């Protein structure tokens, strides 16, 4: 497992994201992960070996390095990127669960052939109902993790700047020794770059959140004023022409209750307006 593996896992989520979500994912992979792997890691590659203190006292180097760099930028960014991208897996799991339920329903109602099942896999899920809440939670968590890591960076490395010289007096250094950081300017440039991309990602997440809320409220307003224009879900279109609601309910009373709940929520089969569970 490495960054390519994470990319493979997350690119599946892309299909079910909003447009802003896809832009966010591209920014993460191209401007953050790729820059981290191809550039930033080599800048920080010699951070310990080239950290030199003006002393021959054994151990002084190690101790001063550990004091001024409790955790390296590179590791913090790696952890940040992993934590910020994993909430998308919540959405992937929820989508997979919904697809599983749809397939079960198709099989139960006699549409369980390979073509229909493939269509279930391929069609894009609407971000509505419980999936909307899952999606919103994942965006909120992303925002939270980004903010927390930016704060951590600020706490550990105030001013987001790398200095050339630090003065160290930790044992076993015999006195206040000068220690020199390797490539401070290059490190500052990359730190500022990653900070800017992190801010862009925060802005994108906030925009996505606002977009989701506004869209959900608009949908609710539209359906409240025009209840007959309900759009059905994927399987609603396939089934509503052939089965009455009571026949489906009869099938469902013999099966798992969760399916019944799902269909009750589905607007086309209930012949009610689309209910927005968000607002």
């Amino acid at each position, binding site marked *: 497992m*490495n960054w*390519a*593996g994470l990319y493979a*896992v997350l690119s599946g989520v892309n299909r079910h994201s909003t447009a802003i979500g896809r832009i966010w994912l591209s920014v993460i992979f191209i401007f953050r992960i790729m820059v981290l792997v191809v550039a930033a890691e080599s800048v920080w590659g010699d951070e310990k070996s080239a950290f030199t203190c003006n002393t021959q006292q054994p151990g002084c180097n190690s101790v001063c390095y550990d*004091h001024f760099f409790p955790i390296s930028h590179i590791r913090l960014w790696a952890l940040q990127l*992993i934590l910020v991208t994993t909430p998308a*897996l919540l959405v992937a799991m929820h989508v997979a669960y919904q697809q599983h339920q749809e397939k079960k329903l198709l099989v139960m109602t006699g549409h369980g052939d390979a073509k229909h099942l493939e269509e279930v896999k391929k069609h894009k899920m609407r971000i509505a109902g419980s999936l909307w809440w899952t999606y919103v939670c994942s965006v909120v968590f992303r925002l939270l993790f980004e903010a927390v890591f930016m704060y951590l960076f600020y706490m550990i490395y105030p001013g987001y700047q790398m200095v050339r010289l630090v003065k160290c007096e930790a044992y076993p250094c015999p006195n206040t020794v000068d220690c020199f950081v390797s490539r401070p300017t290059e490190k500052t440039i990359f730190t500022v770059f990653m900070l800017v991309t992190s801010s862009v990602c925060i802005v994108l997440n906030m925009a996505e959140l606002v977009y989701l809320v506004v869209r959900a409220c608009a949908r609710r307003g539209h359906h409240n004023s025009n209840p007959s224009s309900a759009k059905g879900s994927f399987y609603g279109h396939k089934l509503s022409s052939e089965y009455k609601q009571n026949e489906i309910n009869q099938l469902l009373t013999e099966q798992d209750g969760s399916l019944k709940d799902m269909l009750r929520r589905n607007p086309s089969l209930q012949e009610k307006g689309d209910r927005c569970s968000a607002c």
Partner: protein
Amino acid sequence: MNWSVFEGLLSGVNKYSTAFGRIWLSLVFIFRLLVYVVAAERVWSDDHKDFDCNTRQPGCTNVCFDHFFPVSHIRLWALQLILVTCPSLLVIMHVAYREAKAQQHRAARGESYRSRFPHPGKKRGGLWWTYLFSLVVKAGVDVVFLYIFYRFYRNYSLPRLVKCQLPPCPNIVDCFISRPTEKTIFTVFMVVTTCICVVLSLVEAAYLIGKRCRERCRAGTGESRQHSHDCAEPAMGGQVFHGVGYKAPTASIPTASIPTASVPTDSIPTASVPTDSIPTASVPTAPIPTASIPTTSIPTTLPEQEKTPL
């Protein structure tokens, strides 16, 4: 052989797992294996080279490093990740065995043969026990490694300074560990994810047992006899069952979400566990006088440092 080949072997188990099992697998791949490969390995890359003792006596540094780091964290984690994911291979092998048997019988008795296990991947009969056993082993392995880490590295932390008095060191020498804070942070991170994985495995085991008990109760009271088609009790001898019957809903993560293709290894650093680097458990007894071996590393109380940047 490296992590991507191993990962390819394991991604097949997703199909036969419950929702908890899939979450567990995602946790292991993303929060343990990925963090190990992209971050933790780099932190420990120079652990021996930068272990500095305040002496010019040849051999003192080596001996002290070996005493304080009998097995490096990185090697222990590699072992742990391999051992904790292996029980899942048992499940895959059992399913493959069932499928092979079904195919053999079908070939011998013709297409009209109705298999005892029409869906080899469903957790019924022996496969249920294999799956439960794999869960218990996974939790057990994680707990054992947590204990090993605790015994080797008290409080899961590393001090900056350790004092060493082993021969050939001439007296009590100060030895300095490289990047102790960063190593402590990653150790705590891996301990926390291991604990979460243990809890998940136990919850999954409880879920499986609870589900089985519920099915037995239902079958026992005759409440939903039409749902228990697929009870394949080994004790019932050669009885054949067919039809799918009741299927409990489980969340399924699309198998494409865990990559099966092996990643090109030349551009991305991968870890392979060198088997000869894992030290044996033998402890030298005769040459080292026991009175002089410090049993605990003394954490330093360093005076407050001033950060005065230029």
